[in-house]
């Protein structure tokens, strides 16, 4: 008997509340697209703003409602991206070229930390922007990295640290190219570059060579030697500054060797001394292709069937011949 009353009382309570709630849920319904909620769950939730929208929730809304590409989010794991696209029915649409390019931040300054290149010892708010406000910063070069770590503070992924010479160092494994550091840098020294690319111009000075030379040992003077040595036409000098067109650059390192200021560096190999082509004479059939492609007249020959050889003094190590050789008998060898 007692159990029966319990069952009845609880049951009636339950029924009433269930009914009232379902009534209320109709009456006071606010439409929230379930897709948005699901998308939010799949997003990383770092709220880094790398996508350009206010936080992950804002991005989710944009993705669902405005059809914004999910690739805008630089952080998201590939499987989650797939899930979102599935959720929104996007995977049916053909997007063959949407392979996300994995980029990382690059700091375009390699300035040295010697008194010679300093205006004064900076004391004050430890913030690059603030330093710029005080006599345009403590460095003589007006383009020099302040080295006070505003980019470090801005990075939500702990991917930047200040290294030697007060220059920031980017940990490419951690960097997701969200772009916060780009905005934080008052000198606009940071650029997003493909992680695979290893050859960079570490300078952003547009001053004339003579002026740059006075304030920096390793600044780009716009001499154009790199342009001449590049077999791939991947470097341009404008406003006294060499700039690499990364889509053309193959990372041969010819410019690195040639650069008189050591402004251009090969990231992975600081001790890079350059390469030279060596022809395996036994395999060479004398097809003259290497002779024809070489832009530096560094290949002996030209007569068909005659075995080729490389003139070491002229070869810049661009590797064009090695790439084109049909017999694959040209090897690129590091100089000592």
């Amino acid at each position, binding site marked *: 008997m007692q159990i029966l009353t319990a069952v009845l009382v*609880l049951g009636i309570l*339950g029924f009433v*509340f*269930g009914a009232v*709630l*379902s009534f209320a*849920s109709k009456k006071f319904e606010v439409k929230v697209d379930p897709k948005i909620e699901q998308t939010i769950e799949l997003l990383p939730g770092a709220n880094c703003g790398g996508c350009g929208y206010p936080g992950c929730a804002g991005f989710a809304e944009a993705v669902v409602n405005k059809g914004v590409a999910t690739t805008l989010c630089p952080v998201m794991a590939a499987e989650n991206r797939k899930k979102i696209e599935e959720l929104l029915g996007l995977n049916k649409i053909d997007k063959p070229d949407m392979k996300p390019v994995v980029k990382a931040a690059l700091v375009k300054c390699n300035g040295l930390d010697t008194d010679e290149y300093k205006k004064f010892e900076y004391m004050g708010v430890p913030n690059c922007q603030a330093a710029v406000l005080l006599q345009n910063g403590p460095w003589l070069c007006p383009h020099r990295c302040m080295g006070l770590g505003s980019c470090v503070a801005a990075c939500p992924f702990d991917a930047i640290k200040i290294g030697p010479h007060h220059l920031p160092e980017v940990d490419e494994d951690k960097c997701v190219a969200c772009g916060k550091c780009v905005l934080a840098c008052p000198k606009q020294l940071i650029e997003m570059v493909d992680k695979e690319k290893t050859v960079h111009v570490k300078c952003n000075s547009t001053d004339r060579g003579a002026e740059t030379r006075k304030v920096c040992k390793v600044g780009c003077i716009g001499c154009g030697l790199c342009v001449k040595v590049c077999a791939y036409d991947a470097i341009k000098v404008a406003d006294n500054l060499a700039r690499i067109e990364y889509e053309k650059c193959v990372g041969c390192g010819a410019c690195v060797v040639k650069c008189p200021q050591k402004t251009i560096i090969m990231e992975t190999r600081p001790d890079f001394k350059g390469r030279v082509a060596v022809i395996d004479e036994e395999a060479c059939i004398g097809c003259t292709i290497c002779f024809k492609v070489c832009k530096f007249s560094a290949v002996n020959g030209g007569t068909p069937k005659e075995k080729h050889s490389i003139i070491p003094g002229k070869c810049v190590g661009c590797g064009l011949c090695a790439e084109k050789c049909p017999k694959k008998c040209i090897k690129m060898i590091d100089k000592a």
Partner: protein
Amino acid sequence: MNPIQQLTKGFWKDNPIFVIGLGLCPALAVSSSLSNAVGMGIAATFVLIGSNMMISLLRHLVPSKIRIPVYIVIIATFVTIIDKMIAAYSPALSASLGIFIPLIVVNCIILGRAEAFANKNGVFDSLLDAIGMGIGFTIALCCIAFFRELLGEGKLFGHAMPFFSKDPALIMIMAPGGFIVFGLLIALKRLMASKGGN
């Protein structure tokens, strides 16, 4: 995630109290002695296991609009059962835990696990999760209670400890002591985590 990880994640790494920050009220209110902490831990674990499994079983049946009331009814049932059991078999514990036994109903851990885990996972996983979280809850409670009882009463499980029992700092068994010990413990946990991480 293998079953062992599923079970042990709640012990320390994802400890419901120190890391996730759920179920704080009982953590502070009944942690003034170790025996209370253990009693509360067992009660909560029982409810957690029961409700997690039940909700996991029913997860496909419950209409989402009334899922919260349904969860609560299920949880409340288990809570009432354990409440009555404790009252019947351990009246002293029942007296010292007071209204915090019925308040297990609203312990965020239980509802939180129901909503975040049992709602989405199978029965076995939910069971493991419940046991892990329950043990984690008990561990956290005992950690807090250890310091509070030792410093506040100079005792452990009611047994006087030499040195500490002479002039215990009474504030530790009162509300402020609970807050302070808890705050310092989370900070300590974080310090350890960051040291470990590096």
